[in-house]
Protein backbone atom coordinates (compact mmCIF):
# COMPACT_ATOMS: atom_id res chain seq x y z
CA UNK A 1 0.00 0.00 0.00
CA UNK A 2 2.79 2.37 0.94
CA UNK A 3 4.63 1.70 -2.29
CA UNK A 4 1.48 2.43 -4.30
CA UNK A 5 1.08 5.78 -2.60
CA UNK A 6 4.75 6.55 -3.24
CA UNK A 7 4.37 5.61 -6.90
CA UNK A 8 1.33 7.83 -7.24
CA UNK A 9 2.94 10.83 -5.55
CA UNK A 10 6.23 10.48 -7.42
CA UNK A 11 4.55 10.40 -10.79
CA UNK A 12 2.16 13.19 -9.83
CA UNK A 13 5.22 15.31 -9.04
CA UNK A 14 6.77 14.41 -12.39
CA UNK A 15 3.53 15.27 -14.21
CA UNK A 16 3.02 18.51 -12.31
CA UNK A 17 6.54 19.85 -12.58
CA UNK A 18 7.56 19.09 -16.16
CA UNK A 19 6.40 20.81 -19.31
CA UNK A 20 5.94 19.36 -22.76
CA UNK A 21 6.13 15.66 -22.02
CA UNK A 22 8.29 13.29 -24.03
CA UNK A 23 12.01 13.99 -23.86
CA UNK A 24 11.50 17.08 -21.72
CA UNK A 25 10.55 14.74 -18.87
CA UNK A 26 13.73 12.69 -18.94
CA UNK A 27 15.76 14.72 -16.41
CA UNK A 28 12.84 14.78 -13.97
CA UNK A 29 12.22 11.03 -14.38
CA UNK A 30 15.89 10.30 -13.75
CA UNK A 31 15.89 12.42 -10.62
CA UNK A 32 12.68 11.00 -9.12
CA UNK A 33 13.08 7.35 -10.14
CA UNK A 34 16.84 6.70 -10.17
CA UNK A 35 18.40 9.11 -7.74
CA UNK A 36 15.65 9.63 -5.20
CA UNK A 37 13.97 6.22 -5.01
CA UNK A 38 16.37 3.91 -6.85
CA UNK A 39 13.40 2.10 -8.40
CA UNK A 40 15.02 1.73 -11.81
CA UNK A 41 18.44 2.29 -13.36
CA UNK A 42 19.20 4.98 -15.91
CA UNK A 43 19.64 2.33 -18.60
CA UNK A 44 16.19 0.98 -17.87
CA UNK A 45 14.67 4.44 -18.28
CA UNK A 46 16.35 4.80 -21.67
CA UNK A 47 14.95 1.39 -22.63
CA UNK A 48 11.45 2.41 -21.53
CA UNK A 49 11.77 5.53 -23.61
CA UNK A 50 12.83 3.61 -26.68
CA UNK A 51 9.87 1.26 -26.29
CA UNK A 52 7.53 4.07 -25.30
CA UNK A 53 8.40 5.77 -28.54
CA UNK A 54 7.44 2.78 -30.65
CA UNK A 55 4.31 1.74 -28.80
CA UNK A 56 1.05 3.62 -29.14
CA UNK A 57 0.22 6.33 -26.65
CA UNK A 58 1.86 9.19 -24.83
CA UNK A 59 5.53 8.44 -24.11
CA UNK A 60 5.47 9.78 -20.53
CA UNK A 61 2.38 7.68 -19.78
CA UNK A 62 3.99 4.56 -21.22
CA UNK A 63 7.08 5.16 -19.12
CA UNK A 64 4.95 5.56 -15.97
CA UNK A 65 3.11 2.32 -16.68
CA UNK A 66 6.43 0.51 -17.19
CA UNK A 67 7.95 1.65 -13.91
CA UNK A 68 4.73 1.05 -11.96
CA UNK A 69 4.35 -2.42 -13.47
CA UNK A 70 7.93 -3.28 -12.60
CA UNK A 71 7.43 -2.26 -8.95
CA UNK A 72 3.96 -3.62 -8.26
CA UNK A 73 2.49 -5.41 -11.27
CA UNK A 74 -0.66 -4.27 -13.04
CA UNK A 75 -2.00 -2.26 -10.07
CA UNK A 76 1.34 -0.47 -9.86
CA UNK A 77 1.15 0.36 -13.58
CA UNK A 78 -2.36 1.76 -13.21
CA UNK A 79 -1.54 3.81 -10.09
CA UNK A 80 1.67 5.31 -11.55
CA UNK A 81 -0.17 6.24 -14.75
CA UNK A 82 -3.03 7.88 -12.87
CA UNK A 83 -0.38 9.75 -10.89
CA UNK A 84 1.23 11.26 -13.97
CA UNK A 85 -2.07 12.42 -15.49
CA UNK A 86 -3.73 13.80 -12.33
CA UNK A 87 -1.96 17.21 -12.27
CA UNK A 88 -2.66 17.69 -16.00
CA UNK A 89 -6.35 17.04 -15.57
CA UNK A 90 -6.68 19.43 -12.63
CA UNK A 91 -4.62 22.24 -14.21
CA UNK A 92 -6.25 22.05 -17.63
CA UNK A 93 -9.79 21.91 -16.22
CA UNK A 94 -9.04 25.01 -14.13
CA UNK A 95 -7.55 26.96 -17.05
CA UNK A 96 -10.25 25.86 -19.48
CA UNK A 97 -13.08 26.92 -17.19
CA UNK A 98 -11.46 30.29 -16.41
CA UNK A 99 -10.75 30.96 -20.12
CA UNK A 100 -14.36 30.14 -21.00
CA UNK A 101 -15.60 32.88 -18.67
CA UNK A 102 -13.46 35.55 -20.34
CA UNK A 103 -13.84 34.29 -23.89
CA UNK A 104 -15.77 37.35 -25.16
CA UNK A 105 -13.09 39.79 -23.96
CA UNK A 106 -11.46 41.63 -26.90
CA UNK A 107 -8.00 41.83 -25.32
CA UNK A 108 -8.02 38.08 -24.60
CA UNK A 109 -9.06 37.39 -28.20
CA UNK A 110 -6.18 39.48 -29.57
CA UNK A 111 -3.77 37.78 -27.18
CA UNK A 112 -5.02 34.34 -28.25
CA UNK A 113 -4.63 35.30 -31.92
CA UNK A 114 -0.97 36.10 -31.23
CA UNK A 115 -0.55 32.92 -29.16
CA UNK A 116 -1.99 30.81 -31.99
CA UNK A 117 0.68 32.17 -34.35
CA UNK A 118 3.39 31.25 -31.81
CA UNK A 119 1.84 27.79 -31.35
CA UNK A 120 1.93 27.26 -35.12
CA UNK A 121 5.60 28.29 -35.26
CA UNK A 122 6.43 25.92 -32.39
CA UNK A 123 4.61 22.95 -33.89
CA UNK A 124 6.16 23.62 -37.29
CA UNK A 125 9.58 23.36 -35.63
CA UNK A 126 8.45 20.13 -33.89
CA UNK A 127 7.25 18.61 -37.17
CA UNK A 128 10.54 19.43 -38.86
CA UNK A 129 12.55 17.75 -36.10
CA UNK A 130 10.20 14.72 -36.17
CA UNK A 131 10.63 14.50 -39.93
CA UNK A 132 14.42 14.75 -39.60
CA UNK A 133 14.40 11.88 -37.08
CA UNK A 134 11.94 9.74 -39.05
CA UNK A 135 13.39 10.19 -42.52
CA UNK A 136 16.57 8.13 -42.46
CA UNK A 137 16.74 7.04 -46.11
CA UNK A 138 15.07 7.41 -49.52
CA UNK A 139 12.16 5.06 -48.79
CA UNK A 140 11.30 7.03 -45.62
CA UNK A 141 11.42 10.20 -47.71
CA UNK A 142 9.01 8.67 -50.20
CA UNK A 143 6.64 7.57 -47.41
CA UNK A 144 6.74 11.07 -45.92
CA UNK A 145 6.02 12.75 -49.27
CA UNK A 146 3.30 10.26 -50.20
CA UNK A 147 1.49 10.57 -46.86
CA UNK A 148 1.76 14.36 -47.00
CA UNK A 149 0.14 14.46 -50.45
CA UNK A 150 -2.52 11.83 -49.64
CA UNK A 151 -3.55 13.33 -46.30
CA UNK A 152 -3.56 16.87 -47.73
CA UNK A 153 -5.74 16.19 -50.76
CA UNK A 154 -7.84 13.22 -49.64
CA UNK A 155 -9.89 12.46 -46.56
CA UNK A 156 -8.19 9.23 -45.45
CA UNK A 157 -8.41 8.30 -41.74
CA UNK A 158 -5.07 8.55 -39.90
CA UNK A 159 -5.49 4.98 -38.63
CA UNK A 160 -5.51 3.62 -42.20
CA UNK A 161 -2.41 5.63 -43.10
CA UNK A 162 -0.50 4.48 -40.00
CA UNK A 163 -1.44 0.84 -40.60
CA UNK A 164 -0.49 1.03 -44.29
CA UNK A 165 2.88 2.64 -43.63
CA UNK A 166 3.61 0.02 -40.97
CA UNK A 167 2.96 -2.68 -43.56
CA UNK A 168 5.20 -0.89 -46.09
CA UNK A 169 7.95 -0.86 -43.45
CA UNK A 170 7.56 -4.59 -42.75
CA UNK A 171 7.58 -5.50 -46.46
CA UNK A 172 10.63 -3.31 -47.08
CA UNK A 173 12.41 -5.04 -44.19
CA UNK A 174 11.67 -8.49 -45.61
CA UNK A 175 12.93 -7.47 -49.06
CA UNK A 176 16.10 -5.95 -47.58
CA UNK A 177 16.93 -9.14 -45.63
CA UNK A 178 16.34 -11.32 -48.71
CA UNK A 179 18.70 -9.17 -50.73
CA UNK A 180 21.34 -9.45 -48.06
CA UNK A 181 21.10 -13.23 -48.11
CA UNK A 182 21.28 -13.42 -51.93
Amino acid sequence: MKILLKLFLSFARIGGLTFGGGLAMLPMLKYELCEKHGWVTEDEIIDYYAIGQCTPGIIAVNCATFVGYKKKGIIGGVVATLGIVTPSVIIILLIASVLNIFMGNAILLHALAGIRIAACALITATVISLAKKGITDILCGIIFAAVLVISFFFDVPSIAIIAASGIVGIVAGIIKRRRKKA
Partner: protein
Amino acid sequence: MSIYLLLAWEFFKTGLFAIGGGAATIPFLSEMGGKYGWFSQEELTNMIAISEATPGPMGINMATYVGYTTAGFAGGLIATLALIFPSIVIICLVAKFLTQFRDNKIVNDAFYGIRPAVAALIATVVIGLIQDAFYKPDTGLTAALIPPAILFLVIFVMLQFKKLKKIHPVFWFAGAAVAGIVLKM
Protein backbone atom coordinates in the same frame (compact mmCIF):
# COMPACT_ATOMS: atom_id res chain seq x y z
CA MET B 1 -24.80 7.38 -28.92
CA SER B 2 -24.26 9.48 -25.84
CA ILE B 3 -21.57 12.13 -26.15
CA TYR B 4 -19.58 10.48 -23.33
CA LEU B 5 -19.50 7.11 -25.06
CA LEU B 6 -18.51 8.75 -28.31
CA LEU B 7 -15.72 10.71 -26.60
CA ALA B 8 -14.47 7.56 -24.88
CA TRP B 9 -14.48 5.63 -28.16
CA GLU B 10 -12.69 8.37 -30.13
CA PHE B 11 -10.01 8.82 -27.46
CA PHE B 12 -9.59 5.08 -27.05
CA LYS B 13 -8.83 4.87 -30.78
CA THR B 14 -6.44 7.82 -30.47
CA GLY B 15 -4.61 6.16 -27.59
CA LEU B 16 -4.35 2.96 -29.58
CA PHE B 17 -3.07 4.46 -32.81
CA ALA B 18 -1.26 7.68 -31.90
CA ILE B 19 2.30 6.41 -32.08
CA GLY B 20 5.25 8.62 -31.24
CA GLY B 21 4.08 10.76 -28.35
CA GLY B 22 1.81 13.72 -27.68
CA ALA B 23 2.10 15.52 -31.02
CA ALA B 24 0.97 12.32 -32.75
CA THR B 25 -2.50 12.79 -31.23
CA ILE B 26 -2.98 16.07 -33.16
CA PRO B 27 -4.13 14.47 -36.45
CA PHE B 28 -6.73 12.45 -34.50
CA LEU B 29 -7.97 15.53 -32.65
CA SER B 30 -8.24 17.43 -35.92
CA GLU B 31 -10.29 14.56 -37.38
CA MET B 32 -12.64 14.64 -34.37
CA GLY B 33 -13.20 18.38 -34.77
CA GLY B 34 -14.02 17.97 -38.44
CA LYS B 35 -16.17 14.86 -38.07
CA TYR B 36 -18.37 15.87 -35.13
CA GLY B 37 -18.01 19.66 -35.10
CA TRP B 38 -16.99 19.54 -31.42
CA PHE B 39 -14.52 22.42 -31.88
CA SER B 40 -13.08 24.57 -34.69
CA GLN B 41 -9.51 24.52 -36.02
CA GLU B 42 -8.99 27.82 -34.23
CA GLU B 43 -10.08 26.33 -30.91
CA LEU B 44 -7.79 23.36 -31.54
CA THR B 45 -4.81 25.70 -31.97
CA ASN B 46 -5.74 27.47 -28.71
CA MET B 47 -5.87 24.10 -26.95
CA ILE B 48 -2.51 23.05 -28.38
CA ALA B 49 -0.94 26.31 -27.19
CA ILE B 50 -2.34 25.97 -23.67
CA SER B 51 -1.37 22.30 -23.51
CA GLU B 52 2.18 23.19 -24.43
CA ALA B 53 2.36 26.01 -21.91
CA THR B 54 1.08 24.05 -18.90
CA PRO B 55 2.81 21.28 -16.93
CA GLY B 56 2.26 17.64 -17.76
CA PRO B 57 2.49 15.58 -20.93
CA MET B 58 1.11 17.60 -23.84
CA GLY B 59 -0.99 14.70 -25.16
CA ILE B 60 -2.76 14.32 -21.81
CA ASN B 61 -3.36 18.06 -21.53
CA MET B 62 -4.91 18.12 -24.98
CA ALA B 63 -7.15 15.15 -24.23
CA THR B 64 -8.43 16.79 -21.04
CA TYR B 65 -8.97 20.08 -22.84
CA VAL B 66 -10.74 18.62 -25.86
CA GLY B 67 -12.91 16.47 -23.59
CA TYR B 68 -13.81 19.49 -21.45
CA THR B 69 -14.60 21.66 -24.49
CA THR B 70 -16.82 18.93 -25.87
CA ALA B 71 -18.66 17.72 -22.76
CA GLY B 72 -17.59 19.62 -19.64
CA PHE B 73 -15.69 18.28 -16.63
CA ALA B 74 -16.88 14.70 -17.05
CA GLY B 75 -15.86 14.90 -20.70
CA GLY B 76 -12.34 15.96 -19.73
CA LEU B 77 -12.00 13.04 -17.35
CA ILE B 78 -13.46 10.48 -19.74
CA ALA B 79 -11.31 11.58 -22.68
CA THR B 80 -8.14 11.38 -20.56
CA LEU B 81 -8.93 7.95 -19.11
CA ALA B 82 -9.92 6.59 -22.52
CA LEU B 83 -6.65 7.88 -24.01
CA ILE B 84 -4.42 6.18 -21.43
CA PHE B 85 -6.37 2.90 -21.25
CA PRO B 86 -4.83 1.26 -24.36
CA SER B 87 -1.36 2.38 -23.22
CA ILE B 88 -1.74 0.69 -19.86
CA VAL B 89 -2.90 -2.58 -21.40
CA ILE B 90 -0.23 -2.60 -24.13
CA ILE B 91 2.65 -1.62 -21.84
CA CYS B 92 1.71 -4.22 -19.21
CA LEU B 93 1.83 -6.83 -21.97
CA VAL B 94 5.05 -5.50 -23.48
CA ALA B 95 6.72 -5.24 -20.06
CA LYS B 96 6.53 -9.02 -19.78
CA PHE B 97 8.40 -9.55 -23.03
CA LEU B 98 10.52 -6.42 -22.90
CA THR B 99 13.67 -7.46 -24.70
CA GLN B 100 11.94 -9.66 -27.27
CA PHE B 101 9.71 -6.77 -28.25
CA ARG B 102 12.52 -4.30 -28.60
CA ASP B 103 14.68 -6.56 -30.73
CA ASN B 104 11.82 -7.87 -32.82
CA LYS B 105 12.57 -7.31 -36.51
CA ILE B 106 8.95 -6.96 -37.57
CA VAL B 107 8.20 -4.40 -34.86
CA ASN B 108 11.27 -2.38 -35.83
CA ASP B 109 10.44 -2.57 -39.54
CA ALA B 110 6.87 -1.43 -38.95
CA PHE B 111 8.05 1.59 -36.99
CA TYR B 112 10.59 2.40 -39.67
CA GLY B 113 7.62 2.97 -41.97
CA ILE B 114 5.32 4.58 -39.39
CA ARG B 115 7.71 7.29 -38.17
CA PRO B 116 7.88 9.31 -41.43
CA ALA B 117 4.14 8.77 -41.95
CA VAL B 118 3.32 10.25 -38.54
CA ALA B 119 5.53 13.25 -39.25
CA ALA B 120 3.67 13.80 -42.54
CA LEU B 121 0.24 13.43 -40.88
CA ILE B 122 1.11 16.06 -38.29
CA ALA B 123 2.55 18.31 -41.03
CA THR B 124 -0.77 18.21 -42.89
CA VAL B 125 -2.70 19.27 -39.80
CA VAL B 126 -0.21 22.03 -39.05
CA ILE B 127 -0.59 23.43 -42.58
CA GLY B 128 -4.34 23.66 -41.92
CA LEU B 129 -3.81 25.27 -38.51
CA ILE B 130 -1.47 27.87 -40.02
CA GLN B 131 -4.03 28.69 -42.71
CA ASP B 132 -6.65 29.18 -40.01
CA ALA B 133 -4.39 31.24 -37.77
CA PHE B 134 -3.77 33.67 -40.64
CA TYR B 135 -7.12 33.72 -42.36
CA LYS B 136 -9.68 36.29 -41.26
CA PRO B 137 -13.09 35.73 -42.81
CA ASP B 138 -14.04 39.42 -42.83
CA THR B 139 -10.86 40.79 -44.37
CA GLY B 140 -9.52 37.81 -46.31
CA LEU B 141 -6.05 38.18 -47.78
CA THR B 142 -5.02 41.73 -46.96
CA ALA B 143 -2.19 43.78 -45.51
CA ALA B 144 -3.57 42.79 -42.07
CA LEU B 145 -1.82 39.46 -42.58
CA ILE B 146 1.64 40.99 -42.57
CA PRO B 147 2.06 41.34 -38.76
CA PRO B 148 1.11 37.71 -38.03
CA ALA B 149 3.35 36.54 -40.87
CA ILE B 150 6.28 38.49 -39.45
CA LEU B 151 5.56 37.19 -35.94
CA PHE B 152 5.49 33.62 -37.26
CA LEU B 153 8.75 34.03 -39.16
CA VAL B 154 10.53 35.71 -36.27
CA ILE B 155 9.61 32.93 -33.82
CA PHE B 156 10.31 30.20 -36.35
CA VAL B 157 13.76 31.57 -37.26
CA MET B 158 14.63 32.09 -33.58
CA LEU B 159 13.67 28.48 -32.84
CA GLN B 160 16.38 27.32 -35.24
CA PHE B 161 19.04 28.40 -32.74
CA LYS B 162 19.91 25.72 -30.21
CA LYS B 163 20.08 28.06 -27.24
CA LEU B 164 16.74 29.69 -28.03
CA LYS B 165 15.12 26.28 -28.52
CA LYS B 166 15.46 25.65 -24.79
CA ILE B 167 13.32 28.66 -23.93
CA HIS B 168 10.09 27.51 -22.33
CA PRO B 169 6.99 27.74 -24.59
CA VAL B 170 5.32 29.96 -21.96
CA PHE B 171 7.73 32.78 -22.84
CA TRP B 172 7.08 32.50 -26.57
CA PHE B 173 3.35 32.58 -25.90
CA ALA B 174 3.64 35.52 -23.52
CA GLY B 175 5.59 37.50 -26.11
CA ALA B 176 3.16 36.55 -28.85
CA ALA B 177 0.18 37.48 -26.64
CA VAL B 178 1.64 40.96 -26.12
CA ALA B 179 2.26 41.27 -29.88
CA GLY B 180 -1.32 40.13 -30.53
CA ILE B 181 -2.75 42.76 -28.18
CA VAL B 182 -0.50 45.61 -29.37
CA LEU B 183 -1.02 44.87 -33.08
CA LYS B 184 -4.73 44.00 -32.58
CA MET B 185 -4.42 40.69 -34.44
